[in-house]
């Protein structure tokens, strides 16, 4: 029997509810869940006193940068950051160099992720080279376990191509995910178009660049019957469209990123490109709409859109710097600190709901019960900590939360029973 481990003194919280329980792990699975479990001397005990013991978190949206941009992040460093943030699975976005648009590249990324601190899954590109012109070989990638396809970084602009992609994908049991941005309307923009962009003299991206593509894809979901997942929604208008689509029973799911419920476009006023992201930071009214969408179920998941960039890229002039922010190590704490909802609600958005969208139910996000895979995270809801960019596990430092005090921290993370994070330290 493989090394055994006991999580002692915590409160187990999963989709079925919460109860005070110790959790015994053996052979990579949950061996027992009981209010009081005695441990033989050979069993390693991890203190979960005062903590929430939850299914591991699942990130639908991480840019791990490998292959091609290893100076910003590698699968190894990104997965370590993920584990420290409580994630046991991440979906790696395909806007790498080259793009993940073939079985060969999928295989390479899966191989690189094999020994990582969390389960690394892959989103394949919808179109070859993410150029929005021809379909990528989705069936070949699906055969390797790819369950989500997206051209993220840009949206599929051509409505006819998107329609065909949805139709084709519907036979494969996979889900297409859209980066909702109309390139023509967004052209040349570097922040949200509004009061602040007007004052700061920075070309803006209007709200409608997002909502127009959401409207189109909701229509295409209805036309094709295929499921559509809408990535990183940031505007009240788009969220209202998703709410209406769900009321009409369309197969639409959607996510939001932590920065869209914690920061506004006012943050750009110091011209620090660390606050540049796409979709851009929005005004308070949109931030409120994202929070409301997360609270009422319109938004199914919180996804990090973790987007590492090297220091020199974030020191360029604002309109030349690449968009993107780190997210894996701060997402849970931001949700716990900023959203007014019980921990069960936060975990639904970060664990079992995204697990279902990613096609990972059964391995991640499932109820903590005997026989279930031991992909678990132990969260201290009372821990207060300050974000220090230099102490993050990511290879990059572009967090917009430097110096911010957050409440709630991952104490331990178990991947298939192995403690990859213990007392907030990565074990490998």
């Amino acid at each position, binding site marked *: 029997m493989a090394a055994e481990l006991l999580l002692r003194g915590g409160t187990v919280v999963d989709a079925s509810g919460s109860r005070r329980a110790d959790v015994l792990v053996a052979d990579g699975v949950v061996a027992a869940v009981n209010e009081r479990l005695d441990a033989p001397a050979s069993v390693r005990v991890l203190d979960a006193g005062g903590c929430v013991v939850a299914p591991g978190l699942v990130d639908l949206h991480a840019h791990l940068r490998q292959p091609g941009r290893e100076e910003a992040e590698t699968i190894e460093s990104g997965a370590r950051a993920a584990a420290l943030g409580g994630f046991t699975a991440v979906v790696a976005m395909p806007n790498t160099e080259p793009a993940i648009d073939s079985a060969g590249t999928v295989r390479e990324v899966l191989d690189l992720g094999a020994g990582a601190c969390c389960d690394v899954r892959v989103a394949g590109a919808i179109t070859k080279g993410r150029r929005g012109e021809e379909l990528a070989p989705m069936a070949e990638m699906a055969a390797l376990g790819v369950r989500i396809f997206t051209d993220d970084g840009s949206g599929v602009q051509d409505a006819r191509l998107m329609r065909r992609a949805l139709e084709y994908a519907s036979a494969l049991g996979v889900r297409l995910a859209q980066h909702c941005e109309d390139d023509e309307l967004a052209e040349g923009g570097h922040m949200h*178009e*509004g*009061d602040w*962009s*007007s*004052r*700061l*003299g*920075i*070309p*803006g991206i*209007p709200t409608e660049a997002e909502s127009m593509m959401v409207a189109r894809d909701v229509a295409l979901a209805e036309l094709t019957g295929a499921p559509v997942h809408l990535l990183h929604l940031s505007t009240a208008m788009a969220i209202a469209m998703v709410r209406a689509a769900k009321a009409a029973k369309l197969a639409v799911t959607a996510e939001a990123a932590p920065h869209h419920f914690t920061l506004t476009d006012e943050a750009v006023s*110091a*011209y*620090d490109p660390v606050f540049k992201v796409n979709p851009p930071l929005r005004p308070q009214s949109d931030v409120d709409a994202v929070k409301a969408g997360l609270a009422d179920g319109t938004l199914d998941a919180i996804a990090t859109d973790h987007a590492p960039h090297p220091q*020199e890229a974030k*020191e*360029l*002039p*604002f*309109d*030349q710097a690449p968009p993107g922010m780190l997210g894996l190590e701060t997402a849970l704490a931001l949700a716990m600190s900023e959203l007014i909802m019980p921990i069960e609600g936060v975990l639904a958005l970060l664990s079992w709901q995204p697990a279902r969208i990613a096609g990972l139910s059964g391995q991640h996000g499932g109820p903590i019960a005997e026989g279930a895979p031991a992909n678990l995270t132990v969260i201290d809801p009372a821990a207060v900590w300050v974000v220090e960019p230099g102490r993050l596990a990511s290879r990059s430092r572009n967090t917009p939360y430097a110096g911010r005090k957050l409440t709630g921290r991952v104490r331990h993370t178990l991947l298939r029973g192995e403690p990859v994070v213990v007392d907030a330290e990565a074990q490998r």
Partner: protein
Amino acid sequence: MKHLLSIADLGADGVEEVLRLTESFVEVSARAIPRVPALRGKTVVSLFYEDSTRTRLSFETAAKRLTADTMNFSVSSSSVNKGESVRDTVLTIAAMGVDAIVVRHGSAGVPWQVARWTDAAVINAGDGWHEHPTQALLDCYTIRERRGSLAGLRIAIVGDVKHSRVARSNVLAFSMLGAEVTLVAPPTLLPPSLAGWPVAVSHDLDGCLAKADVVYLLRMQRERQTEALLPSLREYTTLYGLTKDRARLLGEDALVMHPGPMNRGVEIAAEVADLPSAVITRQVANGVAVRMAVLFLILGSRGDLGG
């Protein structure tokens, strides 16, 4: 004051102080030897990432008249073409021991970034569409020179406000000094939001001219018609150009201003630019004195001004 990045940094009192100081430097500039030793031993670098003959020369002349040492770092002849970042360039310049860096860049906000990277004083000489504070100061000075005060004056800023750093700084400065500002432009050339701007908006230039004390024309760039912002420059001139006929609508004391360089025949007719009410070269002349005032305020100390 450590830096001059935005007119907002100065506030109304700061603007007044610069304008008062400018008067003494106008006097200095009129001397046979227009030079005072106020900044002897100080070094001022101009770091220009955009072509700008007039602003660069104006700053350099101002620094020299204050007996500062000047260095000129222009993009075409520098390591920027070899891929050096703005930060590395700034650190390199700062390592030479400079007191002030005058920055012009095509991207909004670069002077703010530079100010984070160096201990030297940073003066914004124009950043993208955002601000051009010394232009606004010299414009205020020029108006005061003719009209005594800006309080209660009606100023029409005409043209491409959206892409204009001059307009953004002038809206702040003019309104701080009590003027009523009206932006006159087609909707495509206005910023997407004017929330919080102390301005009125009009699309009717003729209606504004008779009431205006100052007509401030902005430079119209030719590429705007390829961006679907205008059908043609001809149509722009028809609606918003200060033509010879339109200039007749102006009141007797009204001033015509332009930050230069002008497109004669587009935003302003050649004959209008040469009218006595057009104070465009006066703006340039005052630019040197205003920049002397700004450099002195930032780098000098009161005692240095002497008698």
